[in-house]
């Protein structure tokens, strides 16, 4: 019974991730692709050697983009659903919808925003190919650190709650998270490989669009998965019952 619930939630998480991935894909195509094209134009204008195209630009910006974003959505949807199975009833007195939205908001913050503020997304032509190993390691390290710190902060908050009350326990846990993240920012190496004459406005637009894509993805996922989880775990929604009961009397 419980194992079946986990399986059902996992399937719903992957489906909600796919749906959120479609929304994120629309955001990526409309908001992100114009900046990618401009950055590639900058790259072509400034490099003398022209590489042979393995995959054409028109495929990269459509089918290629869709593959990447949708797989990303499904994969994170599955992971978030498993985290939800664990969080449900353990983080506090929240129903399925609230737990799902809280979880996806935390995921946006820890999996994306925290690493992004240290190692932001870069458009084509920003980044030295020789340092890709170092940059990849640092990025995933920052992501892992952020997730572990968020889990630690949640445990700290739960421990403090009986003594301090929910409000102050949450404030202390979030503050502790922020301080340790700040220390990590301070001590991890800086990466700045933006070419001298790369347009600042283009870099800003690209990074804003990257942030928008993730916000759409996680926002959409939280709402979609919350609804699916609510229907699975509370088959008769409280709101609908409240609406039909007075009408019947």
């Amino acid at each position, binding site marked *: 019974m*419980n*194992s079946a*619930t*986990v399986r059902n939630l*996992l399937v719903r998480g992957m489906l909600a991730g796919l749906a959120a991935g479609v929304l994120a894909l629309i955001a*990526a195509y409309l908001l*992100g*692709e114009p900046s*990618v094209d401009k950055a590639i134009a900058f790259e072509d204008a400034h490099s003398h050697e022209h590489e042979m195209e*393995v*995959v054409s630009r028109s*495929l990269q*910006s459509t089918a*290629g*983009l869709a*593959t*990447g*974003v949708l*797989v*990303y959505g*499904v*994969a*994170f949807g*599955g*992971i978030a659903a*498993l985290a939800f*199975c*664990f969080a*449900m*009833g*353990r983080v506090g007195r*929240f*129903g*399925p919808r*609230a737990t799902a939205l809280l979880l996806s908001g935390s995921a946006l913050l820890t999996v*994306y925003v925290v690493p*992004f503020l240290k*190692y*932001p*997304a*870069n*458009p*084509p032509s920003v*980044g030295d*190919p020789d340092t*890709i*190993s170092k*940059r*990849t*390691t640092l*990025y995933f390290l920052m992501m892992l650190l952020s997730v572990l710190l968020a889990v630690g902060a949640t445990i700290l908050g739960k421990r403090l709650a009986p003594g301090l009350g929910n409000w102050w326990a949450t404030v202390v846990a979030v503050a502790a998270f922020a301080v340790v993240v700040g220390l990590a920012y301070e001590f991890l190496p800086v990466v700045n490989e933006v070419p001298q004459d790369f347009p600042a406005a283009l870099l800003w637009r690209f990074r804003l669009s*990257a942030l928008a*894509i993730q916000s759409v993805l996680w926002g959409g996922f939280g709402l979609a998965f919350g609804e699916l989880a609510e229907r699975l*775990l*509370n088959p008769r929604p*409280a709101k609908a*019952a*409240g609406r039909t*009961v007075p009408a019947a*009397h």
Partner: protein
Amino acid sequence: MAQTVAQPTATTPAVPAKLPLKAIAPWAAFFGILMLVLLYFVGAEQGATSVFNGTDVHEWVHDARHLLGFPCH
């Protein structure tokens, strides 16, 4: 009167029971790893490390990799 009694139960969110860790663990172990492998192929394959030779995977998901914030090139 029946309505005022029904009101609090309607607004209080029903908190479902915890799912036992034993039920979650097998799914988390298998699908958790599978999902991480998928993320690896979107985010890092043929960049810092390669499972397959060439640059086809990298080039195919090139735009997604940039826009999803992974280090690319």
